[in-house]
């Protein structure tokens, strides 16, 4: 129930922010009766109602289950920091890609994820990372003809 309460508050904040942003949408002479702001405003109101319902339900259930309040307070997800760490590896990849290019970036990503997920520090990690990067480069760049970033550091090499 604790999670529902937090979710409700977050949704309420999303709804308010979205409504505020929707009021910044420019008017158009081509606009119809509903207008470009019509649906966004309705959606923000609907989300706010749902958020209030979620909060209300969570509070009612919390009161009804006082005996398990302590257990509720312990609700959480131990995997969250780890999952965010995993995602951050992807974010770093996106950040360095324009500089080091696709092959080096992908090799680093595969190697970093493998180590992060518990692969032993061994030459196999390096081999898998480099092999994987070259394999993907062959598929995407050579086979599919997709222009992946070359990287400012390695410009002219690929």
């Amino acid at each position, binding site marked *: 129930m604790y*999670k529902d309460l937090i979710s409700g508050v977050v949704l309420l904040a999303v709804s308010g922010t979205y409504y505020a942003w929707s009021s910044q*949408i420019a008017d158009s002479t081509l606009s119809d009766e509903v207008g470009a702001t019509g649906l966004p405003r309705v959606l923000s109101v*609907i989300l706010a109602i749902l958020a209030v319902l979620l909060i209300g339900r969570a509070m009612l259930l919390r009161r009804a289950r006082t005996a398990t309040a302590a257990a509720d307070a312990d609700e959480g997800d131990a*995997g969250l920091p780890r999952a965010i760490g995993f995602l951050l590896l992807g974010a770093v990849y996106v950040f360095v890609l324009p500089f080091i290019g696709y092959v080096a970036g992908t090799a680093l990503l595969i190697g970093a994820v493998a180590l992060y997920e518990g692969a032993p520090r061994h030459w196999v990690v390096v081999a*898998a990372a480099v092999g994987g990067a070259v394999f*993907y480069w062959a598929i995407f760049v050579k086979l599919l003809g997709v222009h992946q970033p070359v990287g400012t550091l390695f410009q002219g090499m690929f």
Partner: protein
Amino acid sequence: MTTLWDIIHLLTETPLFFVAIGGLTWGILGGALPGISASITMALVLPFTYTMDPAQAIALLACVYIGAEYGGSIPAILIRTPGTNSSAATVIDGYEMNRQGRAGEALGISLMSGVVGSLFGLAMLILLTEPLSWLALAFTPPSYFGLGILGLSVIASMSGGSLIKGLAAATVGLMIATVGTDPISGVTRFTFDIPDLLGGIEPVLVMVGLFALTELMSQSGSSTVLQLNETIRIKLPSWSMMNKLKRSQTIGCILGLFEGLTPGGGGSIAAFMSYNEAKRWSKTPQSFGKGSEEGVAAPEAANNTVASTALIPLLSFGIPSSNSTAVLLGGLLMHGLIPGPRLFEQSAQVIDSIYVGSFIAIIAQIGVGMIILPACIWLVNRPRAYRAGFIFALILSGIFTLNNSLFDLGIALALGLVGYLMRIAGFPVLPMILGVVLGHMVESSYRRSLVLSGGEHMIFLQDPIAVCLLSIALIFVVFSLSREFRDARKTKIEEAHS
């Protein structure tokens, strides 16, 4: 109208043949990986289809779906871990057969029952889809609005026990769909002067983020070690065995057809229902749970039937009844293809390619299934750490392929985080995806209807198709609401008793 010549031409067309085999192979490999569902397998390949010919791209996705449904049964039988949700029922007798040293036989029964189910499902798809879509020829903007609402009403049955959360997720999905250029006036909304947002947020990014990235994040740090016996080979059932399995396969096919047509039905429900019915109608019900061949055949026939019949409401009306068909809808929209009668009129090639590609994939499944089994076992046995690295790199490379945009990568990663948080908080992701894919249609058809009527909402009640679709949507919602209240009351009574 498709002629025999069109079919023969497509059957002999080299690229479609390879596309079908490629999709099937990828589907079996993806489905065989525990945690990688059919929809994730499809979402992973979705960015690759961006540069492909639309007809081949959609055929590829349909073939991936077929392959993933079979692939899921491999770990279900070998290590008691269903590769996909819909193969969960196969675990019961499939794994028991494996324990009795009959793994090859179980895999063979699963494969052949899957082929029977898929062929039946394909026949139903061909027979029912086009007639149903004729109805949609009479569609007007109010009808399309009704159709969009009907699609969204699926949310009610897919909210995983919390309608409020399902509706909230759908609303956020609709909000995402409003990003970009307004469909009527052309003004920009929520773009914050970022050029990459002018075209909106592509549904494919939402799908890859919410399905694939969320799953990878959830599996992060998992210490589960899977080890399959590498010497196992498929043993196809004999004619007499196939004859014995006739009844259970028929049950699977019929229930698969019914569940495929029902929004929110899906392969897992069909598989479990078929298992129960096959047991009820079996001459040897006592053997169920103890390594019964019929216990493998019924659920496998059912979930493979669903892989085809779930396309009937999708192609006829644009209603995705499951995660996998939502990904397929994303593929259609990505290529500018709108499901419904216009798809049959203007892009008949796409429909023919789905039919012919699926047929090739189903038949080839027998050979490919046997050949690829060692590769599946090898893949499942790889250390999870390396697998995660390779899958993550594949996802990010694929997303970049869409628009050569690093911004897209950022959006997908952010949506991965959103999906993960939704999972923690118990919010279903499918309603959000439905909101994203149907949002544009709902808004534009609603506003076009009002332009036509001069602002009169009565237009929605004057159009018979719109009335019919909105009524069905209302029935779905009322039915789902009553089910939710019933379940909640049941839980309350059970809690009071305990």
